[in-house]
């Protein structure tokens, strides 16, 4: 295979910004192909967190001292920076500890609206027994289990849009699954197993035609594509900082202004109130209404550094670069004996640099272990999408996923090494 493919950015130069990428694994250079699980962090992100803790650390939105004022300013600047990265004004971005927390916030807030919390302003979000919540068969457990729980608490019915053999969502079925009783449609922008960019516009049209709320899991799109959440037309969306070069414990919940206004709080306590008596409390408007307690301030500031890094590289360039990696990855996998891609489909389906596959006769864990012995890090298991694996007749698969810092050589080395796996385990020819 040639190793001189030109891409939209110089990944080899970018790698110097990521200290971990120069470490060795068992004496071999690390080939990190597990960015869909968590991304590596550039020096700028690590430094931003250290710099804040070294120079400005103080509790935000309280206190009259200099550090408190500087910390508050940096914290709110970070919100504006991260909000702008997804095309939103700062007041429409709620800090969460990650996408799972964001989705649970929404599900529990809707549950609260259902039992009358939030008053008349929230009543349009209330669910009645027999109302329907629609997800897809490909969802990550984080965008499935909170809805199962909400359905169980409210008497709503959970339905799903099926996935076709080629991995795409069955939009014909979606048109009948989404109906007059549908109140919520929750789906991933990009599947964390298939890498397919879902047809957001079509799903939003179907949902809004019946007055349903749309909730987007943007975890696997935010690090890889230019993202403009308001332009996508969704009502709510979540993403995780650690998957987009940022730290752990920070993420975002975006919401349309009128939807956030109508949502009652989930977590309650300090920092989210206007007036408290021993009997009752009035709440701040969004986003503070959803930010009870001390916030992950240094993580928010470091996430802002992460999106500034991504902006400097340019998300169009990131997307183009990863497109090249994705095609090479997928085409290479198709040529290896015994490898079956999950949800493979003809060219023309938009994907990010990610592929999950099964190796005939060798369990995913064993494949992962073999690759690890050559310094190659991939994910094995069901990737928190057990129903999707069941749909393809599997309990586990191997997933290779790229980020902006991966090179064509990374993909080629992975493919060459994978081609030896069945031989090592004495399977096949």
């Amino acid at each position, binding site marked *: 295979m040639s190793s001189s493919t030109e891409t939209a950015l110089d990944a080899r130069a970018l790698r110097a910004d990521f200290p971990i990428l120069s470490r060795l694994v068992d004496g071999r250079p690390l080939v990190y192909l597990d960015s869909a699980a968590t991304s590596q962090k550039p020096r700028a992100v690590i430094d931003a967190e250290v710099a804040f803790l070294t120079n400005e650390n103080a509790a935000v939105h309280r206190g009259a001292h200099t550090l408190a004022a500087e910390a508050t300013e940096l914290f709110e600047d970070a919100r504006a920076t991260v909000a702008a990265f997804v095309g939103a004004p700062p007041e429409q971005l709620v800090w969460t500890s990650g996408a799972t927390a964001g989705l649970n916030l929404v599900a529990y807030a809707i549950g609260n609206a259902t039992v009358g919390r939030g008053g008349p302003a929230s009543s349009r979000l209330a669910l009645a027994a027999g109302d329907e919540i629609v997800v897809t068969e490909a969802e990550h457990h984080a965008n499935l289990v909170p809805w199962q729980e909400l359905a169980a608490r409210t008497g709503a019915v959970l339905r799903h849009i099926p996935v076709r053999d080629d991995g795409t969502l069955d939009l014909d079925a979606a048109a009948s699954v989404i109906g007059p009783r549908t109140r919520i449609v929750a789906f991933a922008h990009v599947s964390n197993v298939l890498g397919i960019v879902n047809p957001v516009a079509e799903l939003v049209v179907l949902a809004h035609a019946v007055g349903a709320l749309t909730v987007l899991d943007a975890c696997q799109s935010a690090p890889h594509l230019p993202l403009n959440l308001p332009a996508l037309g969704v009502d709510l969306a979540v993403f995780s900082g650690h998957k987009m070069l940022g730290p752990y414990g920070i993420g975002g919940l975006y919401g349309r202004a009128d939807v956030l206004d109508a949502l009652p709080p989930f977590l309650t306590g300090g920092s989210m109130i206007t007036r408290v008596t021993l009997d009752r409390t009035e709440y701040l408007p969004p986003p503070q209404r959803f930010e009870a307690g001390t916030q992950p301030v240094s993580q928010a500031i470091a996430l802002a550094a992460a999106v500034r890094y991504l902006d400097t590289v340019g998300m169009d360039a990131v997307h183009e670069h990863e497109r090249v990696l994705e095609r090479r990855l997928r085409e290479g996998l198709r040529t290896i004996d015994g490898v079956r891609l999950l949800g493979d489909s003809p060219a023309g389906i938009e994907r990010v640099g990610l592929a999950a596959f099964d190796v005939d006769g060798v*369990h*995913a*864990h064993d494949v992962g272990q073999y690759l690890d*012995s050559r310094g190659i890090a991939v994910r094995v298991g069901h990737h928190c999408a*057990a129903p999707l694996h069941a749909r393809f007749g599997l*309990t586990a698969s191997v997933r290779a996923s790229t980020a902006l810092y991966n090179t064509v050589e990374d993909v080629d080395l992975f493919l060459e090494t994978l081609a030896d796996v069945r031989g090592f385990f*004495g399977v096949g020819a």
Partner: protein
Amino acid sequence: MSGLESLYQELILEHSKRPHGKGLAPEDDAADSLLTGTSHQRNPICGDEITLRVRLDDAGVIRDVTWDGAGCSISQASASMLAVLVEEKDDGMPRAEASALIDGFREALRSRGTIPIDEETYGDAEALSGVSKYTARVKCAMLAWVALEDALLRAS
């Protein structure tokens, strides 16, 4: 031996390809008046599953261990080696001996390579010694043994 070869010893690959004790024995076997216990275990990280059945005689001695399931070569080989260990005891394996074996096996696997698995006591399962250096794989090797532990409780 490289790290990988010490983990995937030939014996492990052999057991995983031609497993012993695979296929559950019938639960009700009135003729032998056996006491049975069945356990279903799952590794939530990878979705691997095993159903293991232990059959004991009137004296509380284990007569056989059978199992069914799907998983990685380590988990399949480990279940097979466990079945052989019981199979090779002509007079069966007393319950207390099995419990002690399970405890010792667990201790060795959690030792991060400091406690070897003794061949004299564990037979082919000695080949799983290398697993203890791979913390992510300890659960794979333990799956069948945890299932036996649970099945014995259920058989009481």
